[in-house]
């Protein structure tokens, strides 16, 4: 019964913006704070989906993972959605299967999509990098975003991805986080921090989306340019 929501993605891949065309009385869930512009007939309602405990779970999984509900009341209207970080947006249609999305990558979804936070932290993670995933299930549309462009990889077999570049993947893939010795600087005894070579190894068949840039690289690049405290 769930119909696809009509949409287009503009200015992809570096400055992607999602334009959702809502039919009369149609509703869409949007990451809170991501609405950029909309017709006046669209009404916003914040919603703590699934009650308090799930809301708390969301606070744990992402920095401010809250969802707002937008409904076109009385007539159809347009809604522009822009993620906080410039990059790409991808659409996926859930048909009862599950999609795992990196927690800050959620953009929007049909109200029929269930969003569940699945705590995936600390398993093999140190160095401040952490992989938190949310799990989307049900039937309906979902959009997710990245920093940089999104590349879709159809996995059949064995695939390795740097953990910080994962955007989303189908739940049919098995995954576990490991340290790939060949990419690690540790054995070289250099005393350089970072570059542990943490990767996520996927197995099975399914689609995987990675991003072409990673926000922490920019932060690390800018860090040495910060002024030094004078005291």
């Amino acid at each position, binding site marked *: 019964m769930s119909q696809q929501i009509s949409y287009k993605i503009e200015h992809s891949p570096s400055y992607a913006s999602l334009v959702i065309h809502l039919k009369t009385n149609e509703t869409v869930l949007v990451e809170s704070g991501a609405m950029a512009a909309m017709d006046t007939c669209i009404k916003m309602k914040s919603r703590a989906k699934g009650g308090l405990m799930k809301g708390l779970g969301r606070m744990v999984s992402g920095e401010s993972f809250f969802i707002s509900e937008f409904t076109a009341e009385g007539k159809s209207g347009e809604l522009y959605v822009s993620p906080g970080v410039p990059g790409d947006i991808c659409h996926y249609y859930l048909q009862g299967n599950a999609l795992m999305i990196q927690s800050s990558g959620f953009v929007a979804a049909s109200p029929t999509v269930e969003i569940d936070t699945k705590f995936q932290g600390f398993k093999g993670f140190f160095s401040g990098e952490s992989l938190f995933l949310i799990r989307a299930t049900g039937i309906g549309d979902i959009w997710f975003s990245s920093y940089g*462009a999104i590349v879709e990889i159809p996995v059949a077999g064995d695939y390795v991805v740097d953990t910080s*570049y994962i955007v989303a993947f189908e739940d049919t893939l098995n995954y576990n986080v490991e340290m790939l010795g060949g990419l690690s*600087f540790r054995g*070289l005894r*250099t005393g*350089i921090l970072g*570059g542990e070579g943490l990767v996520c190894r996927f197995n099975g068949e399914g689609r995987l989306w990675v991003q072409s840039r990673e926000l922490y690289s920019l932060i690390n*690049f*800018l860090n040495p340019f*910060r002024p030094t405290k004078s005291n």
Partner: protein
Amino acid sequence: MNIELLHQPDSAIARVVLDANEELVAQAGCMIAMNGSINASTTLRQGKGGGILGGLKRMVAGESLFLSVFRSPISGGEVFLAPKLMGDLLTYEMKGQELVVQATSYLASESGVDIDLGFQGFKSLFSGESIFWLSLSGYGVVLLTSFGGIYKIPVNGEYIVDTGHIVAFEKSLNFDITKAGSSWLSAFLGGEGLVCRFKGQGNVYCQTHNPGAFGSQVGSKLPPQ
């Protein structure tokens, strides 16, 4: 080896497909994703003035000497590579000539390309920027990256390029570091500190933006360390 550049220019990413036992050398840490069957190893590459001490000196200067080597045991193994900052990619074919590359602009190369870290051409450079240079020679494709867009200047005669904007240049060119203005005072007050003056014939590859200028402009507005 087959190299495909996707999502140019701002979010460029390279998809490299390897034949059986072919090797790809890349700046360590630039691998995004790859087939599980590919073997990766990371090594410390030492320059001519090398040795452990030379290596340490370079590490202190912020030079990353780490190179990863990817080898596919089977034909068709793929590796995705991308630079750290927003910008474009360029493939450059080495046919025995020499190419000088700014270290942060080097992304990857075929194993037939030799990488020499000991390029001392700009030794006299005393602008606080920790730019260092690689000297490439041999045969094969090199992947270069830029901050912003990338453009080629075919030099025939003389040309001046700001050092922060150089991605790479062919060694057939003579060059020297000089000031942009007529006096040292105007050179520094004008903000154009040091420039590279090229002479002769050859190509210079430039980037539209200077990462150092971006870093100091944004970084100075961040809370102190």
